[in-house]
């Protein structure tokens, strides 16, 4: 606690914290107000005398209704959910195995491979997507969620691997050796002893991977074309910007609906996430 007078607490704690919270969360409030603001108010310039940015006298559910009924928003949400979960599972699987191998097994190329995996994180997406388009075409994955489910791990795996490596390094070797003395094979020790201990790290990496998949834009923009296949990011930007008219109301409603569920899940797991990073750091 901040020692000293109460006023010190206010200056050094409450005010800065409130300022942070306000700045970080105001755009969401803004989105909420815009989502329920009727059209006539939306297009009022800020110099007009009756500009009321922070509230609206006539909230309307029209935009939300439009979003859910006239567009394929719910389909996009389901698509994004499916793609994100699948990509996360694949990345976690690969990252778990790779992280274990690189941090706890001794073999000749360990260092080099670790670095190589890390280097792939640096390769920019804008370089990859034209050649990737060729590969997608050869595998006939074009315009299907699998194009994304298989390409997202390319930037998810390096991060998951690194995070889990940090975790594994912190687990004492004795645990494995004890297990092997007791008769377990190496892979059994890995699966039944080490992995359960690393669950917080796994959750943490999983949450991160999920967020990054949910957030991804370029590949989704380039590889998907049918409206039914689109993800939330691509769908909202391509279908709610109709020429002259940005359907701001529905756009903001989409933005909110597209993120609150994820935030909710996060609120349950944030403790794991924090603990996860802590574990990685200790190592």
């Amino acid at each position, binding site marked *: 606690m901040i020692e000293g007078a109460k006023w010190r607490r206010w200056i050094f704690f409450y005010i800065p914290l409130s300022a942070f919270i306000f700045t970080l969360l105001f755009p969401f409030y803004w989105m909420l107000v815009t989502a329920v603001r009727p*059209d*006539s108010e939306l*297009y*009022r*310039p800020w*110099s*007009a005398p009756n500009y009321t940015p922070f509230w609206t006298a006539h909230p309307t559910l029209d935009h939300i209704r439009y979003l859910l009924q006239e567009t394929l928003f719910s389909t996009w949400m389901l698509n994004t959910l499916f793609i994100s979960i699948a990509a996360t599972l694949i990345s976690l699987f690969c990252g778990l195995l790779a992280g274990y191998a690189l941090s706890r097994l001794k073999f000749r190329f360990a260092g080099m491979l670790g670095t190589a995996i890390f280097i792939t994180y640096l390769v920019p997406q804008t370089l990859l*997507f*034209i050649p990737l*388009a*060729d590969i*997608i*075409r050869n595998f*006939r994955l*074009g*315009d299907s969620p699998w194009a994304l489910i298989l390409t997202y791990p390319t930037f998810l795996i390096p991060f998951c691997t690194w995070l889990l490596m940090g975790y594994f390094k912190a687990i004492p070797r004795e645990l494995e050796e004890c297990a092997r003395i007791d008769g377990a094979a190496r892979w059994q020790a890995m699966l039944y002893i080490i992995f359960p201990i690393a669950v917080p790290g796994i959750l943490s990496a999983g949450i991160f991977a999920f967020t990054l998949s949910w957030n991804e834009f370029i590949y989704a*923009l*380039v*590889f998907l*074309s*049918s*409206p039914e296949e689109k993800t939330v990011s691509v769908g909202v*930007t*391509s*279908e709610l*910007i*109709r*020429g*002259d*008219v*940005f359907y701001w109301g529905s756009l903001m409603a989409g933005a909110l609906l597209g993120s609150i569920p994820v935030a909710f899940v996060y609120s349950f797991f944030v403790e794991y996430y924090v603990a996860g990073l802590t574990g990685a750091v200790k190592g």
Partner: protein
Amino acid sequence: MARISRRKLLKLSGGGAVVARTGGIASILALKQAPAFAQATTLHWLRWNDFVPASDTVLQKEIVPECEKALGVKLSIEMINGNDIQARTTSAIQSGSGPDIICALNNWPQLYPESVADVSDVADEIGKAQGGFYEESRVVANDGKKWIAVPWCVLGAQLAYRKSWLAEIGYEAPKFAQTWEEYREAGKKLKAKGRPFGQAVSHSFGDPPTYAYPYLWSWGGKEVEADGKTVVLNSKATVDSVNFAVGFWKDAYDEGGLAWDDSSNNRAFLAGTISSTLNGASIYLEAKRKPDVYLTENGTPLWQDILHAPLPKGADGQFGYHLPMSNMLMKYVKDPKPGKEFLRWITSKPVYQAWFDSQQGYSVGATTIWEKDKLWDKDPVMLPFRTAARAGRFPGYAGPADRHAAEVLSKYIIVDMTAKAIQGMPAQDAAKWAHEEVTRIHA
């Protein structure tokens, strides 16, 4: 569905006199059954989000079911932001799969001649049946030897202005500023009253080029000579035009225009913050669509205070660049026949009529017969748009409208020339920079 022999179908619908007069759909109806394609074919048509939403509704609600009935083709229309069409086309071509038909804007078909199917048969037929294409439409959809796209429409661009505000400073309708100098004076007076002009000078496909190119031409500037190779952009005329533009900008324009996209001027005009802007008819049509939402400062409906006028004259003449659109049939499509049938069908008079009507004059057909349509008698405010497409000039002037011109357009070099000068670069340097960029592209 009974199978009809190909020969019979071709006899009835192939480029004969019957079709020329009655159009594809009539001949198909005459068969009293849908032509049989082996299975139910699907066609994916990629278009931009129309600035007239009613037309998109017509396409989805009327044309799609009609198409299934008439051609046996399941049509799926995807509508995206116009600025994204090029990117989608590139990725579709590279990945070898994507939409069957893409509605390209401006001279973009010239960027993809190797990747589109030859549609000369369809285009020639439509042209003959409908009085010929406008030069502008032809030039962007034809590579000199064959048709690489079927022209679809032309979006007329005019200055939309507030009648009452212009009247206050001396321009009682139908009088309007005739030269750039006059227009600038008017703008100065209006900006002083807090009613500047508005123009997007940014990387958006619609408003910026339709202003920048005719502006340049009216001063006598041009990209290349008629041989298509000699770049002559950096000339006294060009530098003069840029110089004028900078002063003009500060005197008369809403300076936010550097960040505007194609919809910003619409919003600004409808909100009453600008007095005049170059645009398609979408501002007027939107105001007319919602007369209680868009009001003047006196509470009267805004649409009654809007008029249209062409861009002013410069030393070298008066020009306009009106945005052409054409449909490309992609080469990666396995069987081009349904696509061609579709293009023939949808550009035919009876089918196109429905779409044309919904546009309310926002676009003109790519062929000349649409000038005679009854629609133009309905609203005199829309009359300037009727003959818009006869303007005749297109990017790449004075050379052909080829790939190089399309690259120059896609890179927004002409637009940026002015933008840079407005941001402080001396006009000579801006013109020199633009000249070098164009030369590099033509190399």
